[in-house]
């Protein structure tokens, strides 16, 4: 092969048939063909989310929980608040699947009732956060300049206010109810979302297609709706998923310090708080079921949020 000092342009390749040295017919299509089928952003995100076992576990748990929250109380023969003193502290059995509590109430029924409350509080609070956050953050980021500056100073100040303290104060004054708990949770809760939306909008608004739309005289509200929001959707969904467990935790925490949802509702926090004394006397199930569902629901939202974060990150697209 390598002849020293060789003027040897032809490689030693006598074994190769001469007829191979003809011009190849160009196969145009083959060059243009894309190696893999192109997936839309959402299809691709879903494909990646499905590969994440933990996130799928969380998603399935949440779907089942929602179904049980709707059907559980209907299927059960017991009423949520019917007391049955003689039957207090029954062990879980075929009669009472999760046992009964100090007042003889069926823990199974109350658990699914609690799921309704917790999911309702969590979802509604998260949705209000998203709603306010998108409007505030969208305007702040899109308008820029002085408006943005003032709006961000306000956010900075609100951010410094310890939200749970304000929540406590509000509940003390307004009295605890489903409505006031959601109000108290959202009054500071939207700040984080507004920051995220603003960040996204700032990033996206300089992209050329947005500038193009602007130069054609597109209306601000239309540009925000049609261009900015769809692109900012990923981080918003993630933040929303992660703010549901925060609300669920806050509700349970507030029940614990006596500011929770009052009867006739049965939230998980109220159930856990009621049964604190009970476990020391050995009636573990009264605490176990609400505690398990609070923890596992938060776990499910957390792993689903993590999974969505990875799945919706365009940078990680492979």
């Amino acid at each position, binding site marked *: 092969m390598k002849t020293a000092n060789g003027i040897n342009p032809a490689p030693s390749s006598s074994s190769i048939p001469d007829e191979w040295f003809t011009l190849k017919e160009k196969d145009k299509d083959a060059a243009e063909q894309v190696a893999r089928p192109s997936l839309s952003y959402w299809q691709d995100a879903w494909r990646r989310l499905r590969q994440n076992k933990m996130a799928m576990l969380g998603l399935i748990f949440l779907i089942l929980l929602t179904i049980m929250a709707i059907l559980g109380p209907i299927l059960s023969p017991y009423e949520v608040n019917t007391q049955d003193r003689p039957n207090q502290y029954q062990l879980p059995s075929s009669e009472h699947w999760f046992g009964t509590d100090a007042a003889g109430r069926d823990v199974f029924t109350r658990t699914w009732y609690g799921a309704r409350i917790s999911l309702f509080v969590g979802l509604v609070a998260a949705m209000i956060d998203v709603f306010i956050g998108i409007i505030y953050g969208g305007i702040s980021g899109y308008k820029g300049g002085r408006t943005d500056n003032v709006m961000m100073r306000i956010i900075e100040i609100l951010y*410094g206010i310890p939200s749970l303290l*304000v929540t406590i104060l509000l509940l*003390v004054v307004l009295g605890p109810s489903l409505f006031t708990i959601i109000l108290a949770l959202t009054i500071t809760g939207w700040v984080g979302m507004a920051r995220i939306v603003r960040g996204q909008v700032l990033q996206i608004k300089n992209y050329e297609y947005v500038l193009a739309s602007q130069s054609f005289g597109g209306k601000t509200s239309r540009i925000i709706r049609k261009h900015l929001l769809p692109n900012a959707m990923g981080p918003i969904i993630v933040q929303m998923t992660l703010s549901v467990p925060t609300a669920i*935790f806050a509700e349970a925490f507030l029940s614990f310090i006596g500011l929770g949802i009052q009867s006739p509702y049965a939230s998980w926090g109220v159930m856990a708080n009621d049964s604190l004394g009970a476990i020391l006397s050995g009636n573990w199930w009264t605490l176990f079921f609400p505690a398990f569902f609070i923890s596992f629901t938060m776990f499910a939202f*957390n792993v689903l949020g993590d999974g969505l974060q990875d799945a919706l990150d365009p940078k990680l697209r492979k």
Partner: protein
Amino acid sequence: MLRYLLKRSLIALVTLWIIVTITFLLMITVPGSPFSDERSSNETIQANLEAHYNLDEPYHVQYLIYMKNIAMLDLGPSIKQPNQTVNDLLGRGFPISFELGMVTIIVAVISGIVFGIISALRHNGIIDYLSMGFAVLGISIPNFILATLFIQKLAVDWAMFPVATWSSPAHMVLPVAALATGPMAIIARLTRSTMLEVLTQDYIKMAKAKGLSPWKITFKHALRNALMPVVTIMGTLLAGILTGTFVIEQIFAIPGMGKYFVESINQRDYPVIMGTTVFYSAFLIFMLFLVDIVYGIIDPRIKLHKKGGE
């Protein structure tokens, strides 16, 4: 740096002023508060209240007096316990809560960072999976459930630790563990993810190309950059730990401020609720301010940026 500090302290003051004003506004609207027309049945208490809040004056004068009192660190009397002021309660309860909180934050930060670094360096290894699985659990289980679990298993069933109160280091183990698990898990996850990101940076590759040892690369080049996001969430974590002390002190019967605060909520002892809220807000705002300063120290870029902290 000076400009940055001035701006930060101004924001802190405005935040505090807003909180003080909100508490005042809420209190004049709520029935049963010292500002409402209801009279306390206890003569001494009523006399104290009138002397403290000047209840005969119009609201705007009351507001100014209220502000002045707070500026002079006088948080007012209790309406449920005669001759007790909020300052008395804080004087008794806050040192204990502070101790609980500080031990918790130290435990959480140190163990969180250590777990985070190990996970990042053993990325996708068994230690990484274990500690991150543990961390997700730590974030998901509320501290009051952990606390009950600890009492039931470690204190009652296995008698490894005392059940309640706050009198020796052994008494501290369970409440601190219950309170520190959540923040520790958050710090561990954050440290891991930022560490992994930092380790892919060009300056880390450059440090490797200089022939530096892995030890030096991790601690001199990577850790400092990886810790910046951890510092920024310290404020939120501190607030979480502080509110956590409310329930933890309740569960473990620790005579701290959190316990008094929850009692005052249940008794609707409004001046104590107001005073404690204002005090805790001021404390947290001050802590946030400290965190900002620490951030300014570890990130040299802050000094030049006029819009620091963003």
